[in-house]
């Protein structure tokens, strides 16, 4: 409390010092007895300034659109992406019209009706007709928008029943792990209590997990094949955001969430389109999760079925990883044993 009062006092004092330093100006201001009344000239000026503002503002918006228009909404690389983009551009067109028209009307009033002595405003308190018009028109337009939006939403959220490949995206501070369900297309069960050395995802002994494939750094998808992502988190909420695929879903500790989509453009094709050989699709974290939230990422490679099979064949299954681990452990033990014997 004292801190606050002190701080307020300090502000007062500072202001006081400033006041003293411009004593001359203050004298002048005190002579100007018309301070509260806005003169006709000032009203005219301000009315004109609104027009200047509007031109500048629209100019600014247009320039931004020109400069960055091609960087927004990068080409959608999923089957449902274009539907979302169409909905977006439809809504954008609509609101741009509303935005421009209302601003023009607003600023025109300011310009046209800037105050003047002797002028009198029109006493116009209400009009049921006008009010009805601008209640009904938005209501009708919004009904259309809601219907359109919900159709798209349903299409995205309930995709067709074509069998999708199951991939788990597992999040923790501050990285991602992808787990492929393997030949049986079923993820093995897991339990956070079994997390430990060599078992980052907390898998439990389960025949279904043996063929699961766990990868870090990047994961691969097949063009034209639906993938069903299952999201988990081990610590705090994260969000799996894949902007090029118009896909996002939170990863919530204690529950499993899902999102399904079909990639439509391979990484190679996209690199060619963008004329950028370095380009990669990315998975970002989009829910504040701690200091390195801004750098929690994984690359996504979209490729043909063949390439994908080849890549998968190079990865170790969970059973293989475990076997290798046991072996290393055994070797380690042996060498420790030998070391002890040597002594």
């Amino acid at each position, binding site marked *: *409390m004292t801190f*606050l009062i002190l701080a307020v006092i300090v*502000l007062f004092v500072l*202001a006081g010092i*400033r*006041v003293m330093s411009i004593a001359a100006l203050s004298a002048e*201001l005190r002579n100007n*007895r018309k*301070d*509260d009344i806005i003169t006709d000239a000032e009203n005219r000026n*301000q009315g004109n300034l609104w027009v200047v*503002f509007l031109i*500048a503002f629209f100019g*600014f918006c247009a320039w*931004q659109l020109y400069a960055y228009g091609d*960087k*927004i909404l*990068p080409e959608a690389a999923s089957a449902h992406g274009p539907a*979302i983009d169409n909905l977006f551009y439809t*809504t954008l067109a609509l*609101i741009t019209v509303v*935005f421009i028209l209302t*601003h023009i009307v*607003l600023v025109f*009033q*300011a310009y046209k*009706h800037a*105050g003047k002595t002797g002028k*009198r*405003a*029109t*006493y*116009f308190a209400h*009009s049921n007709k*006008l009010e009805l018009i*601008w209640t009904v028109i*938005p*209501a009708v337009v*919004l009904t259309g*928008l809601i219907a359109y*939006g*919900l159709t798209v*939403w*349903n299409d*995205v959220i309930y995709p067709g029943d074509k069998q999708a490949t199951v991939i788990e995206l597992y999040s923790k501070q501050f990285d991602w792990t992808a787990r492929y369900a393997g030949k049986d297309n079923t993820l093995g069960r897991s339990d956070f209590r079994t997390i430990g050395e060599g078992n980052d995802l*907390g898998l439990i002994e389960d025949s279904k997990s043996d063929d699961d494939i766990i990868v870090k750094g990047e994961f691969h998808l097949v063009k034209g094949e639906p993938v069903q992502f299952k999201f988990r988190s081990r*610590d*705090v*909420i994260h*969000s799996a*955001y894949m902007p090029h695929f118009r896909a996002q879903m*939170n990863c919530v500790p*204690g*529950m499993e969430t899902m999102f399904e989509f079909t990639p439509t453009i391979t990484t190679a094709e996209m690199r060619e389109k963008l004329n950028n050989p370095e380009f*990669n699709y990315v998975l970002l974290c*989009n*829910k*504040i999760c701690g*200091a390195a939230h*801004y750098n929690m990422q994984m690359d996504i490679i979209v490729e043909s079925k063949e390439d994908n099979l080849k890549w998968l064949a190079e990865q170790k299954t969970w059973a293989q990883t475990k076997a290798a681990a046991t072996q290393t452990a055994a070797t380690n033990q042996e060498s420790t044993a030998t070391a002890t014997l040597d002594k």
Partner: protein
Amino acid sequence: MSAMDSNNTHPEHDVQILPGVHQHEHAHAHAHAHAHAHAHDHDDEHEHHDTFITKYIFTQDHKMIAKQFLMTAIFMAVIAMLMSIVFRLQLAWPGKSFPILEPILGKWAPGGVLNPDFYLALVTIHGTIMVFFVLTGGLSGTFSNLLIPLQIGARDMASGFLNMLSFWFFAASSVIMLFSVTIESGPASGGWTIYPPLSALEQAMPGSGLGMTLWLISMTLFIVSSLLGSLNYIVTIINLRTKGMSMTRLPLTIWAFLVTAILGVLSFPVLFAAALLLIFDRSFGTSFYLSDIYIGGQALEHNGGSPILYEHLFWFLGHPEVYIVLLPALGITSEVIATNARKPIFGYRAMIASILGIAFLSFIVWGHHMFITGMNPFLGSVFVFTTLLIAIPSAVKAFNYITTLWKGNIQFTPGMLFAIGLVSFFITGGVTGLILGDSALDINLHDTYFVVAHFHLVMGSAAIFGMFAGVYHWFPKMFGRVMNKKLGFAHFWLTFAGAYGVFFPMHFLGLAGVPRRYYSNTEFPIFNDLVDINVLVTWFAILAAVSQIIFLFNFFFSVFRGQKSSQNPWKSNTLEWTTPVEHIHGNWPGEIPEVHRWAYDYSKPDREEDFVLQTTPLTEKEIAEGAH
């Protein structure tokens, strides 16, 4: 307190109407007020009744409490604004050293480079201060307190004592919030929404330790303050209106404050519940929000809770909260626009209906913050529906403001400029709500800079402009002086340009996929093309911040040396301008005036003046025409 149950609708008995003051003080202040009417120059007499402490610190006078809220809010706003400049520097020039930061932030900016943990801390405290301390406590606290008694014709709030408590809880919570920034482990850093488990587990980030505890304590006090204030506002508006002040004669400011207070009373307790459960989870090992967590090399015991529960509770407050921020600003705007357009507010009843409509709908849209939490998609559809419905009353309000200007005789006072600026922000920020409220589009835009752009325009900038409009407009009522108009013009245009320059470009960042709450965008090559937007935004932010020096200077200069105000400088109709310029206890020296008409008879035909005070009796002709 005794006055709350006494019959207050009869101003004749106005001795009873000094609520919250001891009975003998009543009579005393009353007599004193009468003396005022007779002699004029007795400031010294005034002084010896009030000590410095009772006049400036533990005051129960609503006008002084309003000023206390305003001063605190300005102070907090300056801090929050400076924080935003610090993190904007990092966003524009990531990793660059700003030597000035090291002496200020110490270990949080080694070598002048902001540390990532502290970046999040600054964002969190910036958001918390702006939303709660500036635009909730500050905005309602200042203007509800100042205007409710003055505009409804009451001698003070229903309970001056609770009102005083409300301010001191607010002050205490402000101090704790600011203090939390200085502690060793840093303040709360999980975003202003403090989602668990991040905010629940100390292992998750340093700010979730003591900093989070202090945040929760501070917010608890804040909620108490807000509830005390809101209850007082509601009771006062319902019970203490002067004779003739029917609900449909109330200025729209009062309607807005009333509905805001009701929203606060209904939603803040839910935030309190959410915070309480979080405190339990943090300190007493319960599992309301926590389950299946492995962190810091350890599997935690917590079992069976869900963070989603927290999100529901939080947003049940959180969404009404944006209207708690916005409605008072809209109320102020209605008043300022009508007065300075010299016209009745267009569609008075439609304005009331839309305030009520917005308030009602604001309780059933919270799910639009949770479309992608894994919530049942059908439930998502319902929230899309209710969310887009809110656009209707909002559109009505915007159109009505514009029509109020039509064929007006617009006086561009600084207050008026800010009010028109608010309308512009309300439109620009509001239309993008149609995008974010559409669940299918929110999939791709949730938690990106598009959201930051949207809410800064529609809630941040609009409400701040409403607050500025109010400060310029009622400054004469608060300090008996007028703020300098030339400085006001400069302040307005620079701030207006600055705010659009900061927030408009953020739409593009969001559409390109840049997430919010990122310490830097340099880790992703896909964002490399966007570096110059961030630089542009930061320059505009600096411009906007520097422009506030003009305001601060004008404000404090005018408090002491500003042009003395006449009694009714803007030629307004409402009751506050019938009180003397000098503040007195009980507001009116004699009886409380009776009200005979609504607040918006500007430029009424057949009248010589272009305003008609609410205290002017209706003429025969007006009655015949069905005037109210």
